[in-house]
């Protein structure tokens, strides 16, 4: 079996939409499944995905998203975003995609490190108890760069 040259994947999740969170989670989990190390750094709106009270309420963006094939005016109407999110979640459940909370547990159990961004946590006035128990710690971006400690490390901004 051929060995991948990718040894470690570092993800920065900066957005709080459900599709971006899943993109980061699927790629981070996929790395672990291939024997590649992976870590996620949650910053700015990406922090929504690790806040206990918010993580199950992430939504898909219906405005400013041409791939939704929906007029912007319509996407902004009350309830449209919630409906689109519900439909997407239903499709994901069919593919056996775990909900955000369960996915974070799976990632943590799989050895994927989960980090909060210090600057963004301070900016949003978040406390440790607001964040998931699986969090491995709160880092500065410099600390996170230092996690790229081996050849074959790649960094991805989402």
């Amino acid at each position, binding site marked *: *079996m051929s060995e991948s040259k990718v040894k470690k994947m570092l993800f920065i999740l900066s957005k709080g939409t459900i599709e971006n969170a899943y993109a980061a989670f699927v790629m981070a989990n996929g790395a672990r499944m291939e024997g590649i190390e992976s870590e996620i750094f949650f910053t700015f709106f990406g922090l929504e995905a690790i806040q206990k009270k918010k993580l199950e309420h992430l939504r898909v963006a219906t405005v400013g998203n041409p791939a939704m094939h929906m007029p912007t005016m319509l996407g902004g109407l009350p309830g449209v975003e919630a409906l689109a999110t519900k439909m997407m979640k239903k499709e994901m459940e069919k593919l056996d995609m775990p909900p955000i909370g369960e996915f974070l547990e799976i990632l943590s159990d799989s050895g994927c490190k989960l980090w909060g961004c210090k600057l963004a946590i301070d900016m949003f006035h978040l406390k440790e108890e607001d964040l998931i128990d699986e969090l491995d710690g709160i880092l500065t971006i410099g600390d996170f760069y230092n996690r790229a400690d081996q050849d074959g490390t790649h960094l991805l901004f989402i």
Partner: protein
Amino acid sequence: MKKVIGQKEIDVNEEGYLVDFKQWDREVCECIAGECNIVMTEKHWEVIEYIHDKHENQEPLSIRGIKKSGVINIKEFYQLFPGGPLKKATLIAGIPKPKSCI
């Protein structure tokens, strides 16, 4: 292609996965595990049995499924089959590599 595993000549694909499950037995299993630097324990066999059950019932394997299996938790699964647990476990179990992204 053919590959000698243990004493037998076995049909495998380019990644080393068995093409015909009928050629699989415990000896072949232990030899493949050895190539992956894994020494089979009681727990390993339990997992292989679980994987065979799933395969027989044509249920897709996933890491989420492992979590719900009641046989093993995800942490132990990674410890038992280091370097990509589903990939290694299916190789050892003599069934095709799972195609799922999750």
